[in-house]
């Protein structure tokens, strides 16, 4: 009885989480000019249509570029910050940690607005630099979190052992520290990439026509159109996230084989 109840709850939960995704995916194949569910007949035409629209493709490239570069910039910063937080005897490292993780708790609308105001004040309004800086800020906490988590599990004595075995600090970092924090770092990079790619609230304040991102252009598209091309793009995004999630799971598995 209890088990049955439990099973039903879980089934409902999954339905609740997955149903919208399934609805979107199915509707993207509908032939009708207006989004409908369930579709009467099926076609791939909306995929072709979406992929041929420059506002989607160029926005997709913008988003990709933005996510890749903000993650790439945040990565070394996150490594340095994690080392300082977990290894250093830095005074005030708890404060540093809190500040670094703050973007996780501050509403991102606030961050977007704050950066907009601050950068205009400073007379610094180059669209893409500002946008990338803001994305680095929201990506960083994820990277710092996961990287520090890996680093905490890495025995500092292993690094000292490497030093006594003739490795200078750089080689110790490359051969011992970096492989040790790799699982967390990679997970953080993947998270960071998705966070940046999906972000609406910050980009909304900082993007311009040239730097428009995919989530923004989808939003403005649905204001006037309701054809299945939005569903097609969304389905592609879901597919991408799925691939990433599987990769992540692989890493969780990999981590176990490393015995960490």
């Amino acid at each position, binding site marked *: 009885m209890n088990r049955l109840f439990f099973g039903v709850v879980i089934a409902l939960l999954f339905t609740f989480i997955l149903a919208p995704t399934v609805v979107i995916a199915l509707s993207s194949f509908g032939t009708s000019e207006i989004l409908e569910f369930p579709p009467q007949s099926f076609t791939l035409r909306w995929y072709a249509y979406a992929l041929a629209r420059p506002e989607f493709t160029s926005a997709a490239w913008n988003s990709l570029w933005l996510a890749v570069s903000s993650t790439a910039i945040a990565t070394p910063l996150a490594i340095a910050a994690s080392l300082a937080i977990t290894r250093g005897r830095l005074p005030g490292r708890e404060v540093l940690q809190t500040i670094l993780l703050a973007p996780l708790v501050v509403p991102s609308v606030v961050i977007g607005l704050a950066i907009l105001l601050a950068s205009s004040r400073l007379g610094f309004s180059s669209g893409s630099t500002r946008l990338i800086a803001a994305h680095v800020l929201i990506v960083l906490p994820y990277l710092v979190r996961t990287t520090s988590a890996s680093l905490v599990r*890495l*025995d500092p*004595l*292993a690094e*000292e*052992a*490497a*030093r*006594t*075995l*003739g*490795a*200078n600090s750089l*080689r110790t970092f490359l*051969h*011992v520290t970096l*492989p*040790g924090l*790799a699982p967390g770092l990679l997970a953080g990079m993947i998270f960071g990439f998705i966070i940046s790619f999906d972000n609406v609230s910050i980009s909304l304040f900082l993007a311009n026509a040239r730097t428009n991102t995919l989530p923004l252009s989808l939003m403005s598209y649905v204001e006037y159109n309701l054809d299945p091309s939005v569903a097609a793009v969304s389905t592609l995004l879901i597919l991408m996230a799925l691939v990433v999630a599987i990769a992540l799971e692989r890493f969780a598995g990999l981590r176990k*084989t*490393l*015995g*960490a």
Partner: protein
Amino acid sequence: MPALDIQSVTKSYNKLRVLDRVSAQIDKGELVTLLGPSGCGKTTLLRSIAGLADIDEGRIVLEGRDVTKVPIHKRGIAMVFQSHALFPHMSVADNVAFGLKMQGVGKAEREDRVKRALSLVRLDAYLTRMPHELSGGQQQRVAIARAIVTNPTALLLDEPFGALDRKLRETLQVELRRLTKELGITAIFVTHDQEEAVVLSDRVAVMNAGVIQQIAPAVDVYENPANEFVANFMGFQNIFDAKVRSAQELAIGDTVIATDKIDVAPGEGIRMAIRAERVSITAGHREGAIPGQVSSSTYLGEQNAYVVDTADGPVTARIPTSVARFSMGEAVSVSFDPAAVRVLAS
């Protein structure tokens, strides 16, 4: 010239003096154990020698070369830590090969030496295993192989067998001694187990509160402790106040006991020590023995441990069960084997 010359090394953490002018000379191929209670500075001394901790004063001279200011990776001192500290993402072979790689040893020679080092610790069959697939004792042996494969000038071991069970420890102690002797490695081995120290080493350094109290062959430390701390630490159960009467007599309270030759002027008060095994008990009262009453008796198999309450304090004795047995409250007297009485320096 000693292989490792530690000269008056002093080190403080937040004004707490952890090492206080520590000096020791260790010969090439010698194995010295560093023995002392928890927190006395053993790890700190090893870390100072390896360069993992900066020292405030003093010098570390390695085969004639002052390495006090030389960075860790250029000292050629390998260290084995209490927790094996293997590289978790590398196979056993890669762990052992690490030091050779850093030295720029070519691949063929590297593989050869790795195999040899692993066969020395009897793990040649485990080349491709990951560290987490090994038992604690095997991990510790890999750590030892990783340290010795580079032919270090000195090998420092910080309680490497601390977490292992007794039997495995004994096996590894024998293996380690064999290894260092075979390879002629100069080694310092930290432990707080006095038995381990006695079994393993050429000389034992007993340390307390940042000071080396005595450094001498195991037999000497065991039989002729330099001071009360060492006597206590090496398991002398009986330590008393006494007064020197003559070159071969001590007075404990009202009792005069015979001893071997004493180098202290008559009339001086001293501390004396004797092991429980060298105390004998006789029933009733006897001249030259301290009278008392049996206040506790513990059966230890081959021996009985007795505590005899005397006017000068409790005396612990271990008497083979085959020799005699005494009952609780029995009036007895205790006497000391003159050759086993030790006068402690104050």
